[in-house]
């Protein structure tokens, strides 16, 4: 191979790979016309390029099986994706997350920037749907909306029991509170008070399932999301539910709330002689008469909360 052959190598490759400019092609043609070694090399490179073309059209037999597996994986992934958005609220950062089936996560983030949910694929979502969820949530927190009637996906519940507790808690009306014992009784498991409290402690959809409306049978707020009782108090305040701190233990101001026992049709003032007991195990408390009456309850005929309402 002489000097000229060496110089032409790059061009020769370009011609074989069909990437040469016209000028380069002419140059190579002129050289191979007189140099047999390079002519033969060009032919071989062209043959090799033909082999590539043959390889290019060769179908991969494993492709179809792989695509079928991919489709199955995608179905699985779609079921595991949790799309979420973090909203700033008067009560701090709240994360709302939803799956294909519905809202699965509403949680106060505290100092965290994003939620942690083992087993699910988390993806931040900027879509319109979250705009709606966020504005409804903020309306609720500003006292402008009573109901977050969102389709829920309770898969983050850890057991069927917890799901049942959440469903039952979901029926406690706006502006009312009841006790863990009362929820347990409602479930038909009157001895499961502590289990109910545990189930609500790990409520994956705070606010939407209003676990803040469940308190101790003695009127104390007890826990919220661990020990964030102050947060519970602020949420209750949004719903107009009066609380006091004495002595050091935040509790419901029962004297300022209307009482409703079990499944009776009437509601009473707290001093009604007809009220059977002090414990909240069977009692639901309402912040206002309107809240009680919006649940279909009527004023008690004995204590007449309609004519003698609780004084402000």
């Amino acid at each position, binding site marked *: 191979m002489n000097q000229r052959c060496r110089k032409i190598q790059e061009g020769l490759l370009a011609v074989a790979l069909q990437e040469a400019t016209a000028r380069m092609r002419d140059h190579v043609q002129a050289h191979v016309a007189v140099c047999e070694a390079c002519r033969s090399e060009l032919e071989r490179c062209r043959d090799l390029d033909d*082999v590539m073309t043959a390889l290019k059209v060769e179908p991969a037999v494993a492709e179809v099986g*792989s*695509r079928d597996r*991919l489709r199955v994986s995608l179905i699985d992934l779609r079921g595991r994706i949790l799309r979420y958005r973090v909203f700033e609220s008067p009560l701090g950062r709240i994360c709302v997350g939803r799956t294909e089936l519905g809202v699965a996560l509403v949680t106060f983030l505290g100092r965290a920037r994003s939620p942690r949910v083992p087993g699910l694929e988390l993806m931040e979502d900027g879509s319109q749907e979250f705009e709606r969820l966020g504005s409804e949530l903020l309306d609720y927190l500003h006292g402008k909306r009573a109901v977050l009637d969102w389709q829920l996906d309770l898969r983050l519940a850890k057991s069927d029991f917890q799901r049942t507790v959440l469903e039952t808690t979901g029926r406690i009306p706006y502006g009312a509170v009841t006790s863990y014992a009362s929820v347990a009784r409602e479930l038909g498991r009157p001895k499961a008070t502590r289990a109910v409290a545990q189930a609500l402690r790990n409520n994956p959809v705070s606010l939407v399932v209003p676990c803040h409306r469940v308190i101790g049978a003695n009127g104390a707020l007890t826990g919220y999301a661990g020990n964030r009782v102050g947060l519970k108090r602020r949420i209750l305040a949004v719903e107009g539910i009066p609380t006091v701190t004495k002595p050091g233990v935040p509790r419901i101001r029962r004297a300022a709330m209307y009482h409703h026992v079990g499944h009776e049709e009437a509601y009473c003032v707290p001093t009604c002689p007809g009220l059977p007991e002090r414990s909240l195990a069977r009692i639901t408390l309402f912040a206002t008469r309107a809240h009680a009456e919006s649940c279909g309850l009527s004023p008690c005929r004995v204590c007449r909360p309609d004519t003698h309402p609780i004084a402000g």
Partner: protein
Amino acid sequence: MSQDRFDDLVTVHHGEVFRYLLRVTGRGADADDLSQEVFLRAFKAFGALAEDANVRGWLLTIATNQARNHFRSEGRRKRSYEAVADAGSRESPRGPQDENVRREEREQVAAVIATLPSRQRLAFTLRKFHDLEYRDIGEMLKCSKDTARAHVFQAFRKIRRAVSRSEKNPAEARR
């Protein structure tokens, strides 16, 4: 995000992405795993993709990144060499002489491609088998288009040399 749109995307592009990964990894099982990963990643990012984006280029970019991550693992790299050695030693089925020769040639070229350094292998595969522009290959490999072109030419030179060696010494090709 429309689910149907992503299903269409799988239908249209899965084959090419799979073949690309098969070519660069040399192993069906790796191509299967990596192509799954490519599309699962794509699914998660699909919502943020512009309507008029070049979906094919986008998928091949994800595939290239996946392949490069894959090559980074020394163990996998070793397996890929072994797979190449397997491919080289495979007996061709009997058939017309001409077809046999061509098949051997193709297998040999595929085997040599699999032994190229990863950037050359990726660049060469994207260029010769998937007809991508050097500019796009450069973007995928995070180098200039001239560098991408140099990778392709260097790869071709190496393939040519390997084939030429085996022409002179057929036993070597089967090593």
